[in-house]
């Protein structure tokens, strides 16, 4: 099954949720074992995603960089917090 997708490169100007808030909300909807693909071009987001994922026991399965953007794939393990 393809991972869920979250693009953090949009919508900040409208004063929407923070990038990490969007990651947390998307991650919370994952069933155990499901994956979330996050795309961002911001180092602050990358730091936050990695640090937060460690805290909640999530796994960063993949990380790749292309054209100034980084793609991370997170997986929610079978027993983790959100």
């Amino acid at each position: 099954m393809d991972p869920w997708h979250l693009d953090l490169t949009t919508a900040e100007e409208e004063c929407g949720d923070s990038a990490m808030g969007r990651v947390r909300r998307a991650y919370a909807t994952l069933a155990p074992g499901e994956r979330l693909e996050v795309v961002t071009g911001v180092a602050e987001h990358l730091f936050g995603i990695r640090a937060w994922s460690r805290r909640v026991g999530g796994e960063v399965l993949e990380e790749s960089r292309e054209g100034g953007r980084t793609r991370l794939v997170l997986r929610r393990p079978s027993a983790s917090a959100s």
Partner: protein
Amino acid sequence: MTDYAHPEVLVSTEWLAAHLEDPAVRVLEVDWDPASAYELGHVPGAALVDWKREINDPVRRDILSRDQFVSLMERLGVTPQTTLVLYGDMRNWFAAFAFWTFRIYGHADIRLVNGGRRKWFEEDRPVAEAAPALVAASYPAPEPTAGLRQSLSGVRDILGRSDHGLVDVRSPAEFSGAISAPPEYQNEGAQRSGHIPGAVNIPWAQAIQEDDTFKPVDQLRELYQSRGMTPDKSIVTYCRIGERSSHTWFVLTYLLGYPRVANYDGSWSEWGNAVGVPVEKSGAEAAEQVPA
């Protein structure tokens, strides 16, 4: 940064890196969402200021009181002589709001980190998880600064006056009335969408560059003056809750040196819920004047 009207209120990430252990400096990270920012990692030695809990009154809708401000400064180990260096999450919006609030209460030396948290991480600078140990200080409050804040009634009074300017710093979709507030901000919604009549829409982000640092002074001058926001006018900035407009208030006041700029922190979440105040829509939204 020397071309700005008041370059002393802006510091670079390089400057911050060189002053992390300066005892005359207190670095504060002002966050809307500390769990998504400060608590994951912050500038070493920076203390957290939680915008929702510490910059706002916990009960009524208002900025913190003067007594609450004094208590906050004392908790943070700040004296009236301390250099406060602010940065924060959400691209410095809430740091700018804290700057505005602290200025209202008269703190003399406040500086904003140009580029903020985002630039610090982009440059791969050191990050800490532990909060610093703070030693409480005594803070005899200075005299407050008048004229930095505008109210709903004050905005009503200036509608249509050519010696005043209103800058709506929200996104074009908010300004036109296409949206009121994103769904994840349930307590920032409004009964009506649109903008205050006579306001010009200059989204806050037009003042910054890709790395979140401020644009050069000539570009900033062109940005605001080309839309009629000239320094001879008294300018009021607003957004939805007053934080993005604090960012623009900072630009107009300190980078361009406009002498009379006030932030309307009630902003759209007050105006758009008020009974009987005029509202304008624009673009496609203007053709459909149906209550939301």
